[in-house]
């Protein structure tokens, strides 16, 4: 059992929790994830590790309460326990000196980008971060990202804060103005796809963190199959980081929707239980 030590609502329906997990906290590196199961009937879902503090033996997770599992997770309070948490899984992001790096974060992608930006800055890179969301209320971790970036650019789809537009609009301009050595993009698959399309003709290496459906997270089931460079990869053990220019985005977007109908049924069953 894994105790929730801290809980914060970062934005409407977006939560940050700190969970006691000593072994995972000791080993975790930026880019890795855990699989959690909220309760005895729960499903296993992957969540990227946002931060890890070995001194208080905990890890930080950020999630959006959109499905049954994340809504159940959101209903837990400090002191409550989740039944299972396993990790750290996946390969860590390769941290080294690249030169000038643009970190692109969309929505809750801000959370996993944070430790990567921090380590890249420590590794003496010049870190430019673009943080985008639909609107001002949904921007998260702005202060944290500011602290670990040399520059922070904000975009909102509705123009309520920062630049009016998408993260790719800001990216295009920054690429024009700077000689960029690496782009790292984390966010919704569709955002990562468009970021990769912007950087590909410019031949800027682009790392993305893929988020397909997973079950065990150790390579055993193959639910998380993605195609990269026309080869099938298991995201949980071969990734989650891949070269964005080689990813078959349409396949990922399609496979993320396998259980759309079932997700609706699951949500209905949750609200029935509540009422």
């Amino acid at each position, binding site marked *: 059992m894994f105790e929730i030590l801290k809980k914060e609502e970062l934005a409407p329906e977006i939560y940050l929790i700190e969970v006691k997990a000593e072994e995972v906290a000791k080993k975790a590196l930026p880019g890795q994830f855990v699989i959690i199961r909220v309760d005895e009937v729960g499903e296993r879902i992957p969540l990227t590790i946002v931060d890890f503090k070995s001194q208080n033996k905990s890890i930080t997770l950020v999630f959006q309460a959109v499905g049954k599992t994340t809504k159940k997770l959101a209903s837990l309070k400090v002191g409550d326990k989740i039944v299972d948490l396993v990790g750290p899984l996946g390969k860590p992001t390769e941290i080294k000196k690249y030169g000038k790096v643009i970190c692109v974060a969309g929505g809750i992608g801000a959370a996993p980008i944070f430790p990567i930006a921090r380590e890249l800055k420590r590794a003496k890179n010049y870190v430019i971060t673009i943080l985008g969301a639909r609107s001002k209320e949904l921007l998260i971790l702005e202060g944290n990202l500011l602290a670990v970036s040399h520059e922070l650019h904000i975009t909102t789809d509705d123009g309520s804060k920062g630049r009016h537009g998408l993260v790719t609009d800001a990216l295009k301009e920054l690429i024009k103005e700077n000689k960029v050595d690496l782009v790292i993009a984390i966010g919704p698959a569709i955002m990562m796809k468009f970021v990769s399309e912007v950087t590909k003709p410019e031949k800027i290496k682009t790392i993305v963190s893929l988020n397909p459906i997973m079950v065990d997270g150790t390579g055993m089931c193959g639910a998380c*199959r993605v195609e990269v460079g026309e080869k099938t990869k298991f995201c949980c053990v071969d990734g989650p980081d891949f070269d964005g220019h080689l990813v078959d985005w349409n396949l990922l977007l399609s496979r993320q929707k396998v259980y759309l109908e079932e997700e609706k049924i699951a949500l209905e069953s949750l609200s029935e239980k509540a009422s």
Partner: protein
Amino acid sequence: MAEKKKEINPKKTPMPEQEPLVRIENFNEVALGYSVKNAIAEAERCLSCKKAPCVGGCPVEVDIPAFIQFVKEGDFLKAVKKIKEKNILPAICGRVCPQEDQCEKYCTLGKKYEPIAIGRLERFVADFEREKGLVEGFEVPKPNGKKVAVIGSGPSGLTVAGDLVKLGYDITIFEALHKPGGVLVYGIPEFRLPKKVVQAEIEFLQKMGVKIQTDVVVGKTVTIDELLNQEYQAVFIGIGAGLPLFMGIEGENLNGVYSANEFLTRVNLMKAYLFPEYDTPIKRGEKVAVVGGGNVALDSARTALRLGAKKVYLVYRRSEKEMPCRHEEFEHAKEEGVEFIFLTLPKRILSRGNGWVGAIECIKMILGEPDETGRRRPVPVSGSEFILDVDVVVVAIGTRANPLLPSTTPGLRLNEKGYIKINEIGRTSKKGVFAGGDIVTGSATVISAMGAGRTAARAIDEYLSK
């Protein structure tokens, strides 16, 4: 032997079963088990051979005539104790061992008649003990102060743990998933091996002092070197075969295509058949094709039926004769309405147009010359392509070694396929590290993994007694 010769029933005492049309509507166990009367009647068929060739056919050397003798006498508790001297998982083995290729194959009676139903009797006495609440622990000797880490809680790991705890070792099993049991829990379906049976046999081990830590991926959460440096004097690796194989054909990543591992894990471990009471979903296909011919393929096909499929095809590239599955399971699947399409190979999986599976294009095969396994190699017949309309495909063509643990364990030698190399007693190339089961041999049976566990346990004891 002066008493007059009794007429021996040439046939095994049949095991009551759920009717096919009833059982495909539920996930309850198909075979219902012997009654006391059935068990005694079957035991009385045993010739109690002095030489007992059956024992030689058992990878863990259960004293079969001795336990059957107790069944004859109606002392079922003594019978199960006799089995447990050698096999700590009798309720599981009684259900899933391929007895027809092991003990029963060598049964003297089998030369003339049907052999003794050893597996059914093993299951009966184990169930009797459990259902009557009479399970007793073994006397465990004084702790010898030596700690052994067992990685993986499948059949080989459980056997190592059981054997060593009986000798006074302090055993901790590390399991990556959230429930112990390995393939017994995620792979073999409820209707063949009820999970409460597995749980009870694992609880028995825990009662004897075995500790189990779930949610630990050795190689990620902790490494073997750390285990050896911290507190463990020896490590046993029994992590199973791991990664599912795919065919490498067009369309294999379409929605609705599952590996058997994923399909069965969702249903068995995650209980997707009880969705939405349980949160994990599964696609319930109307027309399902399962590719493969082993037990896992049959388990997948029969699971698909129980999930409500109207049609389940099992597509196998060789003929019925070459199927590696248990004959009994093949018969069960046939009775339940699985449609077998032999000598057929999928060429590509076709989309319905929206990212979902719509059909498989297959090609007919004929059997050519024998290959390295001695089975005749299937060869495609050109121009024989045909289309099978399906909405779910399950690929059950085997597994390969998972590199996750070996890649973080320097000094662990592997063979060219990535399986761990061991010597005849289960030692790996790394000091203090032993291995057994599917991660050494590739996919095999529960009992062979248990046999490997037994061998390794002996070697570990010898290594730590020096």
